[in-house]
């Protein structure tokens, strides 16, 4: 009891202040530092020209360095405002704020080479993906968090101005005013992720001058950077569109497309190559977009984005706060929860970017993963020579993400696994068919009545609510799936015996639209992996994540288009992403309807 309490408290600390903790993928494990030769380092402030005495920056790729000063393709100053909209038009591509994770990735890449503490700008409440606009209502809290973050980041950057200033192209080090203006002209287009307008150069320049006069160079520099980091063009992904394509669609501007690509495929800002392509207006045609997408997908940063999607889609963080009865599960420790959470990422990374073939089928059926000692014990395999070595799990017991402890344990109660929560999860996440949870006045847990014999197994305990015809309507489908996962206890450990009785892990998808009966996790995984419904659902999940708002009827053409390509690519998840970026919904803005 005492142990459980302490563990839960520790876990709660994670929940409460999760926003204050370093995002797992940013602080200490920048994937770009994990290069094969182990010597390559992230490019230092890649938007700065190389100055004398600086370490060599990353090779810029095929594109030449962007010329200093005004890049080509500077947008016209203040184009006329768009016509007002009515609610009759198709739902727009909504204005999106960078999520906390995207913000931290962006700051990491914008100021690469400068160590920054992670910033806290909470993603709001809601049930959708973190980038869902419902969760991004501007509030005093959010605006203040942005201000505090901007002040802190600007302070850290100014403390490392020795990295910035020597490489400014032409400024005279003695001329502080010129130096400030030079930095605005160089940093500004990268922070706002598009060329600066004259108006903006003037505004930030005048602000710098005023603060230089009132305070000093360092203060003026810090305040100017803090202002850039609070500007709408930094914080939001503003899409004004370029030219109308037809009556219904407007093309995206090239910088807008660069941002769409980088935030979907890297969960971060564009790199120098992508900016160069935008400068050259070479992000308009499907082949141009596809070429860039394939380049981005080959970069280690793509793993950030793919893991972020899976973390949100499959609720991987839930396991971190799952408390178990200590008497029943003495091995359930904070360390084990963290290990389970880590393994969830590692399986996805291995299947999509590592030794796997990147197919959805593999994600659902793979037995290849990475474990440490405590997970090896949980999964019943010999301990690895080194933590997180590649291992093969027993094929009779495990198959892909639905037999991972992260899912099985987070859909369990303190003592008993929950076939209901597990069944609902599979229906919701893999079949896009979440059943409604019972509304008023339905007893939703298996009763422990005194007047009937105690249940022998968890299956029998839960089977009782299937007995009520009123409940049957939904539970035939839910339990058909969930009962088939009775071979895993509330921590995700495989079992053949429950409460002294043999486990019955037979299940059925007859009531879930797919059809067929199965035995155990591998049996369920095989059926799901062969289902076109699952293919389509995964495409829909990715499209919803991409879009930043809930699905609408108008989205079906895009869903059908992308699903068809996903199917044609044999369920290759990287090809799914390529199909999404080439789709009309990704390349165009809906044209606003004039009332």
């Amino acid at each position, binding site marked *: 009891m005492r142990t459980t309490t302490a563990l839960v408290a520790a876990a709660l600390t994670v929940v409460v*202040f999760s926003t204050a903790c370093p995002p797992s993928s940013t602080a200490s494990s920048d994937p770009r530092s994990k290069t094969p030769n182990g010597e390559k380092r992230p490019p230092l402030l890649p938007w700065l020209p190389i100055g004398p005495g600086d370490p060599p920056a990353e090779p810029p790729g095929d594109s030449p360095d962007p010329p200093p000063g005004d890049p080509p393709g500077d947008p016209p100053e203040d184009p006329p405002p*768009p016509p007002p909209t009515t609610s009759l038009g198709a739902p727009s591509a909504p204005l999106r704020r960078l999520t906390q994770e995207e913000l931290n990735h962006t700051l990491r890449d914008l100021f690469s080479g400068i160590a920054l503490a992670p910033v806290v700008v909470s993603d709001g*409440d809601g049930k959708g993906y973190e980038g869902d606009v419902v969760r991004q209502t501007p509030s005093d809290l959010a605006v203040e968090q942005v201000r505090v973050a901007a002040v802190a980041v600007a302070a850290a950057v100014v403390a490392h101005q020795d990295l910035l200033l020597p490489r400014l192209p032409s400024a005279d080090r003695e001329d502080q005013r010129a130096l400030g203006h030079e930095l605005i002209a160089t940093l500004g287009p990268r922070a706002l992720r598009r060329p600066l307008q004259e108006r903006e150069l003037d505004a930030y320049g005048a602000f710098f001058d005023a603060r230089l006069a009132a305070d000093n160079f360092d203060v003026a520099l810090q*305040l100017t950077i803090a202002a850039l980091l609070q500007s*709408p063009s930094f914080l939001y992904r503003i899409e004004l569109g370029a030219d109308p394509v037809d009556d219904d669609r407007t093309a995206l501007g090239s910088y807008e497309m660069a941002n769409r690509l980088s935030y979907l495929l890297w969960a971060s800002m564009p790199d120098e190559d992508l900016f160069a392509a935008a400068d050259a207006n070479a992000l308009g045609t499907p082949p141009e977009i596809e070429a860039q997408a394939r380049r981005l997908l080959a970069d280690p940063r793509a793993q950030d984005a793919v893991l972020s999607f899976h973390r949100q889609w499959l609720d991987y963080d839930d396991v971190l706060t799952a408390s178990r009865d200590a008497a029943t599960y003495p091995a359930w420790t904070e360390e084990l929860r963290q290990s389970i959470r880590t393994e969830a990422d590692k399986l996805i990374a291995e299947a999509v970017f590592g030794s796997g073939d990147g197919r959805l089928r593999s994600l659902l059926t793979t037995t290849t993963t990475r474990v440490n000692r405590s997970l090896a014990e949980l999964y019943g395999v010999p301990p690895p020579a080194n933590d997180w070595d590649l291992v093969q799990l027993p094929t009779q017991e495990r198959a892909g993400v639905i037999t991972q402890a992260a899912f099985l344990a987070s859909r369990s109660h303190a003592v008993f696994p929950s076939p209901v929560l597990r069944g609902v999860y599979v229906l919701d996440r893999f079949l896009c068919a979440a059943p409604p*949870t019972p*509304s008023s006045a339905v007893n939703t847990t298996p009763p422990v009545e005194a007047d009937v014999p105690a249940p022998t197994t968890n299956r029998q305990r839960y089977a009782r609510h299937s007995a009520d015809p009123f409940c049957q309507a939904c539970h035939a489908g839910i339990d058909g799936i969930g009962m088939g996962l009775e071979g895993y206890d509330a921590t995700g450990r495989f079992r053949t015996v429950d409460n002294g009785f043999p486990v019955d892990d037979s299940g059925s998808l007859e009531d879930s639209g797919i059809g067929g009966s199965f035995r155990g996790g591998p049996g369920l995984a095989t059926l799901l992996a062969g289902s076109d419904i699952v293919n389509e659902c995964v495409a829909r999940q990715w499209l919803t994540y991409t879009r930043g708002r*809930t699905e609408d009827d108008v989205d079906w053409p895009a869903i059908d288009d992308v699903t068809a390509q996903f199917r044609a690519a044999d369920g290759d998840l990287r090809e799914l992403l390529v199909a999404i970026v080439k789709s009309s919904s990704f390349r165009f803005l809906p044209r606003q309807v004039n009332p």
Partner: protein
Amino acid sequence: MMRSNRRRLLAAAGLLGGSLFLPSRVRAGLPRAPKRLVIFFTQHGTVYGNWRMRPGGVGDTADFSADLTSLTLGEFSEVLQPLHALRRKLVVVDGLAMTSVEADVIGNGHDLGTRGALTCAQLVNGNAGGPSIDQIVARQIRAQGRLDSLELAVVGTRNGGAVWRDVGQSISPDRNPNNVYDRLFPTSFVGSTPTNADRVAAAQGSVLDLVKREYDAVAPRLSGADRQKLELHRDLVFDIETRLQSPAPMNQCSRPSSPQLNGSDDASFYESRAEAMFGLTTAALACDLTRVVTIQMDQLNNEQIGAPPGDVHADFAHQQENDAFARQMMTNYGACHARQFASLLERLDAVPEGEGTLLDSCAVLWVSELADGIHNYRPWPVVIGGGLVRPGRYIYLKADVPNPSRATNFPNFTPTIGPAHNKLWVSVGRAVGADLSSVGVTEVFTPNGTRIDCSGPLEALA
């Protein structure tokens, strides 16, 4: 004089301690006590049988209003006993229905109730279909230099949150007491030789001015909801700029000490954050930094309700109807929140203001996302603290309105329910100075077409 007087009062109330950070304030401060709204929002409703009271044995068939102040501790219900000492400043409202939620789609009761409790609006795309009452009131009584509203959460929120700015616009509360403190009481430089950090802090207003102008430049180039979002962001930037540059309300308050947080296990962690947020609420209201506060309380932990290991939601709340032990656990659950609610009210009551206390100029509502742990939406338990709604009463409202629910085949369906909870919010909104004729939907219909009026005030509260 006043200061020492208050300190004595606080000591008497047992409130002086590690976590106390009440601001000091001179009596001559506000000319007339402003009206304030506080909402204390909890999970899982209550155990109705152990929450309700029937003073004098009156039955359920007719409305009644009884004197709460004459009841003994033993006559108070088990859930509400921790509030007995405060009965002269309480109204208990028994019998309301979340009518707009009953009439909504059939779905997850927690989600629907969370979105409908404070909005009385029906779902749009799975999100709340309108603003919550705190936001409605905040917008009506807003004033430059004051925070429109303060959204707090103790530990975290559930089911996507109860506070909505408007249709599909969830507002995320602050969960971090230290952060709340920094937002309410920003540090300002007062020395003579400023460091660079002091200079940066002092110049924040000028940065925000530039930022605001950038939003001004960009917003008109967008349209519809996107433009509104940037305009709202700009307004919030301006609000913060104003507050940083002229923290006028602090003229009446000296800076309180920062919250002391502790919590080595989940129960003390929860209690520590709750007390900190109650203290911050009191400070914010006493200094008139805001007049609207919502406090969303997370689900309680087993240790707080004396429960063995198990899932509070699944093993106790859902079982309260058919399992005596689970019912007792959820009764303890209600009583634990009653103790917390009492602590909040005592803190407000410990601050002298005008001829009375800060609590007298507040309406402090304790409501939940559901009526009970088995997902009913009625009778919806409501307790009102403070002096704005005439206190000292137990108000019972009989169930004589047709139930608009489509789930007529559900086991606990009842053909009639009490008055719509919209009416409560109209009355409370008016009590705190808002001009309201309705909140959320104005009417709903039963499956056979009978119209149910949801507008206007709750006459029984007058």
